[in-house]
């Protein structure tokens, strides 16, 4: 069965920490960082290596800071 491996790259300086991506992620891959960015927001980071590249986080992200990569492994 083909397996879908994904990864996300987050532009942390533009993230406003609204948590919508964390709620939208079915895999609980994302969480808020304990650190803050230049704007003073806790930004989203990847905390688990189980992304499937479903694209939900990037679609819901209001600030378009998430870039999604997906690789299908046979």
């Amino acid at each position, binding site marked *: 069965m083909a397996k879908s491996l994904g990864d996300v790259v987050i532009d942390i300086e533009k993230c406003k920490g609204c948590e919508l991506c964390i709620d939208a992620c079915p895999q609980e891959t994302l969480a808020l960082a*304990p650190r803050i960015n230049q704007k003073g927001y806790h930004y989203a980071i990847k905390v688990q290596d189980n992304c499937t590249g479903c694209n939900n986080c990037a*679609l819901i992200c209001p600030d378009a800071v998430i870039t999604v*990569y997906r690789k299908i492994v046979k």
Partner: protein
Amino acid sequence: MGIQVQEIPINPEIVQDENLLYCKPDTLTPKPFHYCPGCGHSTVHKILMEVVAEMGIQEEIIGVAPVGCSVFAYDYMDVDMQEAAHGRACAVATGIKRMMPDKFVFTYQGDGDLAAIGTAETIHAANRGENILVVFINNAVYGMTSGQMAPTTLPGMVSTTSPFGRDVHTMGYPIKVSELLATLPAVAYVTRQSVHTPGNVRKTKKALQKALEYQKQGLGFCLVEIVSNCPSNWKMTPLESNKFIDDKMIPYYPLGDVKVPEVK
């Protein structure tokens, strides 16, 4: 300190150009949005510009920006834009479309702009069947001026000018703009969507694409109403505001197509 959160580095085997699934569209400028965290405006900017990029019409589309939170829409959308006086976006778009009928024209308006000060312009542009797309963001308050009651504020909803909740006996009922405009014969396509879940974002994107295709065919006035949130003025977190959309907004403003053109 709470739970220790460990950041995981990116996987260089997956993060390669050939595996790219989704990135910020080129039709948006690199400038970060000024909107509050979790605001639906920026999501709508993003998907509208994605549709423009996918249809390859960046050079052929002209937008009209409103007054309201989205007054700086022209800073973010990398297409030709024109700022209109408060509420007059449909009138300006009418002029642009009549002078340049081969271009795509859209207006981007909030509920204060479209449903309050610009009601007359909107209704008459719709009644004339102007071949334009109107993107209407309904977040039930006047966002930019700090949360006064809008014509679309829900019954009983607290805002700064209705501190005891909107009383429908003295302040009237919320206007359902989509249903109102759908009764006009010259209106081609009216739909109500939202951007509070990834699934709804996908549906809204499809609706915007459909509306631009109808404009290409010259079918007439298209309205895409988007039920959105305003976490700052609703005094909620972005997640709570999305739940409020599900619980309170959608029962009053049901999602779906209100009017679709007849298939030729």
